[in-house]
């Protein structure tokens, strides 16, 4: 894409963003925010039809004139079909998957088609993604468009200008909309560093805050639902059978806890320290161990599980970039 074109597109996108404001999901694609323009193939088609029109007029040939009319009509019908392919489509949710620096983060858009028509070849793309995602939605279905975005530096990778577009059916027009939800991929520091894990300290037993219920966990039983419990731990089957809301509880198999401290990494600069901490978190999590994290001005108590890991890594990712 030429520089001029990308610049132009950015300006138009900025205009559109100012026009339609920030989006809160779910977003239903109304006429006001759907744009449509001919594609390059569409312009070529228009030129071809214009040539036919001229020839038909010059020869005074009605059949050729009608042929030009048919082709122009097909293109115009295609324009309406293209626009309809997105109209009233719902962007039900958008979710990002964090990544380690150097890896690939993800953006998943759930598109909901509540209409009686199929929406074919709906394309989702965002600047920086490896390749656009294309989904086909049968009538009355939900589909997920999954994009991969390479993550370079730790921090928040902003996904601006998520574009939902389509050139269906004839590729002569492209209808699109921009999603202006503040989406970002959290990019964790790259786990790097050779220092050994700090030694475990003391032994405690705490199962109440068990996070994800990893496989090595030991089944302990059910207990009543309390505020703040994750829905993933709710025993839905039991609930559906008529029992009250119960939560599945697991016992931890870990024995000690380690304190991972930003301040206790002499001889490394801040980024290297974050990378070493990330390494430790990944390792400790893989071992199923409990660990706490201490950052300047921020502290995480000892815990384990995927949720804890995510929060700790996110803190590393945003350290020094955003106020906690």
């Amino acid at each position, binding site marked *: 894409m030429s520089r001029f074109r990308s610049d132009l597109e950015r300006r138009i996108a900025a205009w559109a963003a100012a026009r339609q404001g920030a989006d809160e999901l779910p977003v239903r694609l109304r006429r006001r925010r759907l744009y449509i323009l001919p594609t390059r193939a569409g312009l070529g088609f228009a030129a071809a039809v214009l040539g036919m029109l001229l020839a038909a007029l010059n020869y005074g040939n009605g059949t050729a004139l009608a042929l030009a009319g048919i082709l122009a009509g097909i293109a115009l019908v295609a324009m309406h079909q293209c*626009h309809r392919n997105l109209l009233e489509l719902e962007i039900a949710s958008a979710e990002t998957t964090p990544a380690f620096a150097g890896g690939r983060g993800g953006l998943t858009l759930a598109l909901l088609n509540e209409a009686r028509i199929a929406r074919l070849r709906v394309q989702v793309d965002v600047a920086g993604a490896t390749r656009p995602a294309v989904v086909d939605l049968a009538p009355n279905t939900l589909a997920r468009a999954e994009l991969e975005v390479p993550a370079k530096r730790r921090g928040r990778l902003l996904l601006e200008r998520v574009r939902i577009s389509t050139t269906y059916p004839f590729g002569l027009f492209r209808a699109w909309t921009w999603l202006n939800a503040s989406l970002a991929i959290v990019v964790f520091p790259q786990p790097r560093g050779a220092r050994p894990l700090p030694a475990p300290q003391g032994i405690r037993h705490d199962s109440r805050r068990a996070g994800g219920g990893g496989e090595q966990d030991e089944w302990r039983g059910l207990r009543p639902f309390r505020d703040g419990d994750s829905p993933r731990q709710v025993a839905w089957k039991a609930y559906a059978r008529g029992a009250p809301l119960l939560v599945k509880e697991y016992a931890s198999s870990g024995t000690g806890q380690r304190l991972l401290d930003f301040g206790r990494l002499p001889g490394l600069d801040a980024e290297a320290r974050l990378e070493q901490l990330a390494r430790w978190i990944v390792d400790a999590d893989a071992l199923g161990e409990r660990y706490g994290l201490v950052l300047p001005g921020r502290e995480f108590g000892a815990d384990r599980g995927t949720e804890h890991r995510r929060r700790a890594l996110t803190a590393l990712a945003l350290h020094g970039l955003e106020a906690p």
Partner: protein
Amino acid sequence: MSARAAAPTPRPLAWTAAAFLGGVLLHLGRVPLWTVVAAFVCAAWSLAGHVRRLPLPGKTLRIAIALALIAAVLVIFRTLNGLEAGTALLTAMGSVKLLETHTRRDRYVVIAAALYLLLAAALDAQDLLFLPIYAAHAWLCAAALAVNAHPQSPLGGRAAARLAARSFLAALPLAVLVFLFFPRLAGSLWALPAPGRAATGLSDTLTPGAISELIESPEPAFRVWFDGALPPAAERYWRGPVLDEFDGATWSRPPPWRLGPPRSLAPLGRAYRYRLTLEPSAHRWAFALDTIASAPQTIRVRLTPDHVLVSARPLIEPVTYEAVSYPHARDADPLTARMRARDLILPRGRNPRTLALAHRLRTEAGGDAAFVEAALGFLRRGGFRYTLTPPRLAGDQVDELLFETRQGFCGHFASAFAALMRAGGVPARIVTGYLGGEWNPIGRYLLVRQSDAHAWVEVWLEGRGWTRVDPTAAIAPERLTHDLLEVLPSAASATERLLLEVHWLASIQLAWDAANAWWTSTVIDFDLSSQLALLGRLGLRAPGLTALAAVLALALCAWLAVSAWHYGKPPPARRPDRLALAYRRLCGKLARAGSVRESHEGPLAYADSIARRNPEIGRRVRPLLEEYAALRFGPAARAEALRVAEFQRAVARWRAPAVRSRSDRVPRERRKA
């Protein structure tokens, strides 16, 4: 790269090739056969290369093929300009392009070539018969376009074909509007190339055998709508080129054609008014019932002194004109000495027996008129036979016909008779044209075919002027009132004989010709003046280009509005999906419990807002809303069907706790499971 991943579907290429070959086939018989063969070979090669991974020609070879094809077109047509050569060139170039269709763009170029082949076909021939074929090809191109735009679409080629068909039908009204209201040019922007192929029709020379070739052609020459009664069958002489130069074998009309003030014509009998639609030909003659009074004003033709309508350019498009003719009239202006001398010239030293016969008859008869009668009597009584397959004439052709073979067709007899007249000192000339015509009761017009071609003689008689004499009528008088095929059944081909004998077939043929006549006069002949007339019929006071443009714009807007309405808001599904239904049900329950979901709230935001308003309900419903969020928006790899079913049941079971609220209405519930 694995072989499977590397081999993309051949569908786009196959459809592209089909569209292109369809375009080439439209020109079958119009372009040299080798271009058609080359197109098929290139398409097969390209597909084979794609599917079987056969090597395709490299760049050098492709350029070589392209240059060879251009050279071949140049050698055959001696130009790259003009419809025929252009079509052949487009075919050749499209074929070469098929060999390098790596990208979608390449295939688009080939489809564009297919569309322009269709355009060329439409420019060349707009017969009613071809219309469905053209429509089918336009549809094929649209389908190829759709397949190429989205080759990975889950609906395959069939869906693309259906889509193209529906789009075609939706576009049809626009085509009609454009046809009716797009302002036509009064002239042309650039010169129209004359068609290269020889169209059937009378030429400006006559050799005795020439007309028998025309007889084989059942093509229509023109159609005539009479305003009132038809002239009697024996008076349906349609006048064409008049030939007065004779070299002993061929009669011709030396260019430049003499133009001058038309000679005055004194009508003797009744007048016939008619409208005539001439089929396209490569010639400049516009035919009219003998003898036409004045040149029609609506087309650019001139009336020559010998009462022939001549156009400045070949009449390659159909033309329609209105005229008035007098079958009985007198060309009363005196014959100048120069004209008289010209119409008495005979090649020296040829046909001595004819000269002797003329001398004898002339001496016996005395006057010119009696001489003409005597010569006709000679033909009548001389044992002459009217046949389409006479023996070949050589040497002194007139002598041979009159005294040896005695068999011939109208051209032979007219030629011999005119020569005999000149030998006897009576100015004579040949008139070619058509005789007769078939009445079409469906379209109420007279159809004159090429097979009605005829030649007769005009002699100058003092006091009567140019007088028509038809020697064929002396030999085969039934030819005047009957179709040629009825007079000479052997001349008919098998199909024509079938038509003569099976009457319902003949009536189908009449109906088909009537449809063609309607097509030619209302569709092909539709031009700026027809458009303005249409506007007038629509009630516009001052029809003009501005009015035309305004009507076109209005019609376009109306069509666009209908199309936009038709392809507007997609209809909502009859039944939302199960999860949405369950969620809606839950939201309904919550709304009745006093917590209405704001439209901007997702499930989790909703849970928060419920918790703020009513912690008790919030506490109880939060797991359900979180589960909904997880089901709807969570990662894909989950056993969802099962969980959705569980969620549905959970929602069914859920009841808002009794709270102090104004809308304290506990909903009725059906208990499931």
